[in-house]
């Protein structure tokens, strides 16, 4: 069924981002950056995205 994403937590209107939930949401405007991950490489911590 079609849902009005602007009325739902986790979405904003007008974006075309992909799902960050591993395919749990197929289309719409869930934030691509909904998962924030810090990464480490060779001991250097990068405060990431």
């Amino acid at each position, binding site marked *: *069924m*079609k*849902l*009005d994403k602007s*009325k*739902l*937590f*986790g979405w*904003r209107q*007008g*974006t*075309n*981002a*992909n799902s*960050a*939930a*591993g*395919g*749990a*949401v*197929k*289309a*719409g405007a869930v*934030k*691509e*950056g*909904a*998962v*924030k*991950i*810090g*990464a*480490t*490489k*060779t001991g250097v*911590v*990068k*405060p*990431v*995205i």
Partner: protein
Amino acid sequence: MFLPSRLSGTLGRLRVAQRIHDSLAYLSDEIDTKYPAISDNLNTACRIISEEMRINPSTCATYFEIVAALEDDRFADAEALSNDLIDLTKSEQPALAMFTMTASSLGDVRHELVSRHFADGYFGKSFLCEPTADDVKVRAEQVRQALLRMQSTVPELYAEVAETISEIIFARGNVGADSYTFDGASSLEYWGAIVLNTAVKKTDLQVFEMIAHESGHNTLFALSPDEFFVYNTDDERHASPLRDDPRPLDGIYHATFVTARMHYAISRLAASGQIVTVEEQREAVRLLELYRNNFDAGYDVLSRHARYTPSGKNIMDETKIYMDRGLNAD
């Protein structure tokens, strides 16, 4: 809005609870006549949320699962999930409970929800693995000590963390082809939890800053869950001073904010006089210099490219004031 406080944590929690409540009420209205059983369950969950005004991470994730099921016309799944939702909203959620990334620790349902709602385009699905018992033992003790230390030296940050974070999950991360592994993770879709990689060795000071870092992401999620912080779309990428690959500005915004939060946490800890060894004092100086450089680089990218929303601008302005003035910012 930049400076941490118990009030900030409480308001953030209430805001997320209200937003999920309103979303569930909307979904219930949409399916009212066609699927009354689902609608009734969603209304029951709304009533419980109104009474408790506390959302646990599993409730948040299940809400996202229900949205997905309805969108895919999987109404039987949606009904089963709406039954789960009632149980989850009823369940008590102590602050700062520690879990291991296993089904036996989290329970089958929650383990699956964590896997699904921390999936990421960069690290892929299922990058959170079961950690070794020895690593968990070490990290759990470090986290316990860090929280005690935070409570006595940066009580306003501890209070906010306790209001915001209900689950601390210990996991081991896969190492990708480019040698990156995850360090810590937070998810809007599993709000109120942080995941820490126990396979990456950390000093006590680094564990302290990690809690400030990941809880900062959750705080930011709660501060603006509906309009976000920049109008720039996610397909617009910019060189990030904080990561090798070009990133959306929302991500750079988050990274810049939490970098300042880490600076605040270590600065307050240092000002408390509770960093007693020379080795740790030197480490604190190094970390503060790193945060300063990373913040300046992130802020520079935002200044050149970000089209801030009103709340996005207010929060970043306050963040910049702190970084310019230090602990005298308030």
